[in-house]
């Protein structure tokens, strides 16, 4: 046990060194950008790097009592994300019970079942049981106007904010032979790769971007940026394979998968924002938007990463 702890600590120390490097580079770049068109990219990098320290500090604090602490932290994140999503959905007061159930019944049950490690339950709870329960609550109130939109959007909000998000802390409970006690590193791998891929993609789009993926949604997300972002994530994943039980080449492929899902997830969330006429999901004090704005790529990549890991490496 002691050996495992030491090992985890050593890995975390290396992650700290990486963050420090990223921060230094970002501060220097933002101070004096070499090329003018990269100035916004550099500022974005600096804002993110600063955000990472906050994130790392908060996660470390909640990890002190054990994985359950981080699980609790993400239950709060889910609540914040669900609040942001349901604020923008089509709704009527007839959906009030469905909303109450989403926040105060479905969300706690999802996280509790991860806590108890009931994989067979939490993997299907929201897609199956939630799928039946919530429309029932709405139909009991007897309003039919835009019923399908209302129930579909509520369900979609739960899938993203609770189901997908909860798969990040669920990584802490996967049993991987020979990797006991190191699961926190998997979550760090996921977040680092997803966030870096966003940045690579952004920078590559500025430098080489020609063909927007979806011009109506965003001119700055291009196929060139997407491809280069996924490739950069592939390399980064290989370099960070020491955080994982995968080995170098599989870690690189996992990272590419994370980057692909994450980028597309960001685009999906941007489409919703565009449709609802908002710039950001939430309005936290530092001007970086809400929970979803900073975690969208991670949220979308989490379930895929979780299941790939579980399928290939877990017992």
């Amino acid at each position, binding site marked *: 046990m002691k050996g495992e702890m030491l090992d985890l600590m050593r890995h975390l120390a290396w992650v700290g060194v990486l963050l420090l490097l990223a921060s230094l580079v970002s501060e220097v770049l933002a101070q004096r950008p070499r090329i003018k068109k990269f100035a916004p990219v550099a500022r974005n990098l600096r804002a993110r790097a600063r955000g990472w320290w906050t994130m790392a500090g908060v996660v470390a604090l909640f990890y002190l009592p054990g994985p359950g602490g981080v699980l609790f932290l993400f239950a709060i994140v889910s609540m914040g994300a669900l609040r*942001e999503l*349901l604020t923008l959905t089509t709704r*009527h007061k007839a959906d009030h019970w469905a909303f109450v159930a989403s926040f105060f019944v479905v969300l706690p049950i999802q996280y509790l079942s991860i806590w108890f490690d009931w994989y067979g339950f939490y993997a299907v709870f929201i897609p199956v049981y939630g799928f039946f329960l919530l429309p029932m609550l709405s139909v009991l109130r007897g309003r039919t106007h835009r019923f399908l939109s209302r129930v579909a959007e509520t369900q979609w909000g739960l899938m993203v904010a609770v189901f997908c998000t909860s798969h990040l802390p669920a990584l802490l409970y996967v049993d991987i032979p020979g990797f006991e006690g190191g699961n926190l590193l998997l979550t760090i791998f996921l977040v680092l790769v997803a966030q870096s891929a966003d940045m690579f993609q952004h920078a590559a789009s500025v430098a080489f971007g020609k063909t927007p993926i979806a011009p109506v949604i965003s001119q700055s997300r291009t196929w060139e940026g997407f491809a280069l972002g996924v490739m950069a994530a592939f390399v980064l994943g290989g370099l960070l394979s020491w955080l994982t039980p995968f080995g170098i080449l599989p870690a690189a492929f996992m990272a590419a998968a994370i980057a692909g899902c994450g980028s597309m997830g960001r685009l999906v969330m941007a489409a919703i924002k565009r449709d609802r006429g908002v710039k950001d999901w939430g309005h936290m004090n530092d001007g970086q938007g809400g929970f979803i704005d900073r975690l969208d790529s991670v949220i979308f990549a989490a379930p895929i990463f979780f299941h790939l890991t579980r399928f290939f490496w877990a017992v």
Partner: protein
Amino acid sequence: MLKSIERWLGHLVGVALAGVIHLLTAPRIIWMGSPPGARQRVYYANHTSNADTVLIWAALPPTIRRRTRPVAAADYWLKNRLRKFFGTAVFNTVLIQRDPNQRGDDNPVAQMSDAIDEGSSLIIFPEGRRNDTEAPLLPFKSGLFHMACARPEVDLIPVWIDNLNGVMPRGEVIPVPLICQVFFGEAVHMAPDEDKEAFLTRASAALEALIPVQEDDA
């Protein structure tokens, strides 16, 4: 002694309430043309939820909050001991009689003017009751007009509260967390020779102008 304990307790409950409303609604507070300041003001707002007062009150910076008193119906806030505690110790409301027959010597406009003369700002809901209709605003009662006549130098600030009725629709007991917005508009003053009708229409339009562009909800 008992009085000061009650005040202290009221203050504590007020801080807690503001915290709860911030957690539930993560309010986005937008000052459009009238920065928060120490000037004396009458905030007039749309009324769709029982929590409207609390949200406006919590949206104000704490130093201003302490000197801002909601105007509310005496029959509601004096009904039992708990309401009385909230009405007086927590919000320090200016209690007015809605029923003219029971008013006696207390005239609502005089009460509000007194509160202003003591240095307080006020929160009022000029529609006079909660709006359960589809219309954005009910026609304003004349209180706002009489107030503006009595103290023409005071800024009247329109305040639009967005989405709070989604957090806890009428008749529900459990609130759900949803993001709310509070828009503080530009100050409105009485124009010279303006009659009641014209003034109330203008004040109402100033409030309606703050409504954000809405998606067509179900």
